[in-house]
């Protein structure tokens, strides 16, 4: 009985669909580009909620800002899901509808992007990966998340503001972007204070603020007084407020959430990153297997100490921070990239 009813339902839907698609000419949803210069059509695919206060939100806000600034035309979708079989129908539809640049905003989208790039060579694909895999295609670019550059700077400030001599980090998963970020905090802190203590916790989830808060409390109880974050920071910020300790914002500027407890944020200027890529697409400069490393030197990553932070930052640390920042901007120094292993095994000289 159920079988037949479902079959009937599917049949009915199919007939209706056939009737509908006959009565309605071409595909939907495409706006014709206005007269004058044809803008790049960008599609942004977000794996989770656009209001997650961090990773997805920053991409969303940056893209919207770029659209408002007239840099490109934008369509976006959020809550797509992290897995390939959820990503592919969404991305394929954009590819078929003539989008110029499709931005796949998480590392797990790498493999399906490579496949789709094969099938749709006229579309340019950008992917939030790490490093350039060997088999990257002509029309695929990686846009790095050089958080480690920012976390290195933040680490200096952390060491300069820590009262207990021990700082730490909480990360969702031990992926290269987070591992290098965590070790970046560590390396930066050691640069200012080679005896600084450092602990890190990996949560096993990106989205559990209550658990993050408990993890932060555990670190604070263990003597850490400033925590860097690679993941949803809202729970950690709450713990920092409660315990009157320090925290570093992740991806967004989070000073407004807790003006006295957020020492700084490793803010990611997604608008700049996306505009850079779109500009290349417009100029036909989207090179094969290009890596877009829009980092500290280019203004893609921004780390600025929060003047309202509850404790003073050691002036020597501030001087070191300015020194390092200047050297990065001039190209004289590159913060260390430590995707595996420990910062303790890496020698850093400015």
């Amino acid at each position, binding site marked *: 009985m159920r079988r037949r009813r479902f079959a009937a339902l599917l049949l009915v839907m199919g007939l209706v669909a056939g009737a509908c698609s006959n009565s309605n000419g071409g595909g939907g949803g495409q706006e014709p580009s206005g007269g004058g210069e044809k803008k790049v059509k960008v599609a942004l695919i977000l794996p989770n*909620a*656009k*209001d*997650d*206060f961090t990773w997805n*939100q920053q991409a*969303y*806000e940056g893209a919207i800002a770029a659209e408002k600034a007239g840099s490109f035309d934008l369509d976006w979708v959020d*809550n797509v899901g992290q897995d390939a079989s959820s990503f592919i129908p969404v991305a394929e539809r954009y590819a078929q509808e003539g989008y110029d640049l499709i931005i796949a905003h998480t590392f797990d989208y790498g493999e399906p992007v490579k496949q789709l790039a094969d099938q749709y060579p006229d579309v340019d694909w950008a992917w939030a990966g790490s490093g350039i895999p060997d088999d990257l295609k002509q029309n695929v670019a990686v846009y790095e998340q050089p958080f480690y550059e920012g976390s290195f700077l933040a680490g200096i400030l952390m060491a300069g503001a820590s009262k207990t001599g021990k700082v*730490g980090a909480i990360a969702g998963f*031990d992926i290269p972007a987070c591992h290098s970020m965590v070790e970046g905090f560590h390396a930066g802190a050691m640069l200012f204070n080679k005896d600084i203590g*450092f*602990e*890190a*916790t*990996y*949560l*096993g*989830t990106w*989205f*559990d*603020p*209550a*658990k993050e*808060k*408990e*993890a932060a*409390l*555990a*670190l604070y*109880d*263990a003597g*850490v007084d400033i925590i860097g974050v690679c993941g*949803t920071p*809202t*729970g950690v*910020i*709450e713990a920092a407020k409660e315990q009157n300790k320090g925290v570093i914002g992740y991806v*967004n*500027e*989070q000073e*407004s*959430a*807790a003006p006295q407890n957020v020492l700084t944020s490793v803010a990611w200027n997604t608008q700049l990153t996306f505009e850079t890529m779109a500009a290349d697409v417009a100029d036909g400069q989207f090179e094969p297997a290009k890596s877009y490393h829009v980092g500290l030197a280019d203004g893609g990553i921004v780390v600025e100490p929060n003047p309202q932070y509850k404790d003073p930052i050691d002036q020597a640390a501030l001087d070191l921070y300015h020194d390092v920042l200047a050297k990065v901007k001039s190209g004289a120094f590159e913060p260390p990239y430590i995707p595996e292993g*420990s910062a*303790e095994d890496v020698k850093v000289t400015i």
Partner: protein
Amino acid sequence: MDWGAVFGAAAIVPWLNSGIRLAMPVACAAAGETIGQRSGVINLGLEGMMLGGALGAFLLSLQTGNTWLGFLAAPVVGALLALLMGLFTIKLKAEQVVTGIVFVLLAYGLSSFLYQELFEVQAAPPHIERLPIVKVPLLGDIPFIGPILFEQNVLVYVSVGLIALLWLLLFRTRFGLAVRAAGEAPAAADAAGVPVDTVRMISLMISGAMAGVGGALLVIAQLGFYQDQVTAGRGWIAIALVYFSRWNPLWAAGGAVLFGVVDALQLRIQAAGGGFHNPIPFEVFQALPYLATLAVLLFAAKRQRRVGQPAALGIAYEKEATV
């Protein structure tokens, strides 16, 4: 790896405190679910009801500026969602497992959508005033036990009270008897005059209300803000714990505490150096609470005779028409 930092005297109190905080939302939901399941209804929609309670409590607190008032929204929202689910599973006799799972999906979608509609994308989530931590006079001064048991958020005491009430309800009242009868032998209960469907609906609404309270705990006692999917799968753990608890609300809460304490432990182990530069992969620590639950189950199973689940669990009661 500094084990002293994890198990040392100074560390025990914060650790157990953290364990209780992690446990309470799950404890509420699990204890409530035991009532529902005792009456014969499986409520797999717990995660959705926790989420609904959390969002409802948050919104009302934000709107009225009064968190106590906001808290009242939690059991109401939870119970209403349970009522809706009951229309499907009890009234229409739809399959309970499927209905529950689909309900959770509906709750995910609606809560996400509602939150997105009500709040713009902003740098930090809007905050409400959290309910305070209360230290019980005298009892709170007992060394060691005092800070753990008697210096908790006021909602923790409320929850413990509610859970104790649930136990009393189930085992010391006539209603509780009716609940258990409805779950063990609905036909006989019906013949004896017990309105089986009504009893089940009420039990289901109790489980929904408790789930809502559990969700609200997260938001108005611990975090002070709401975020998409803030419950993060706790509802499913609560369901598992019901089976662990042999359908006893106190044991369900106990199981939740066990789980929470081990979870807090693994976080503290990682904070003491366990997660970082350590040959033991941190996945082992992340898996600890689940392994611990299984281990206790195994241990308990070996020692006790099997306590069966309510005989009519999951089976909708169809009155044999003898009009």
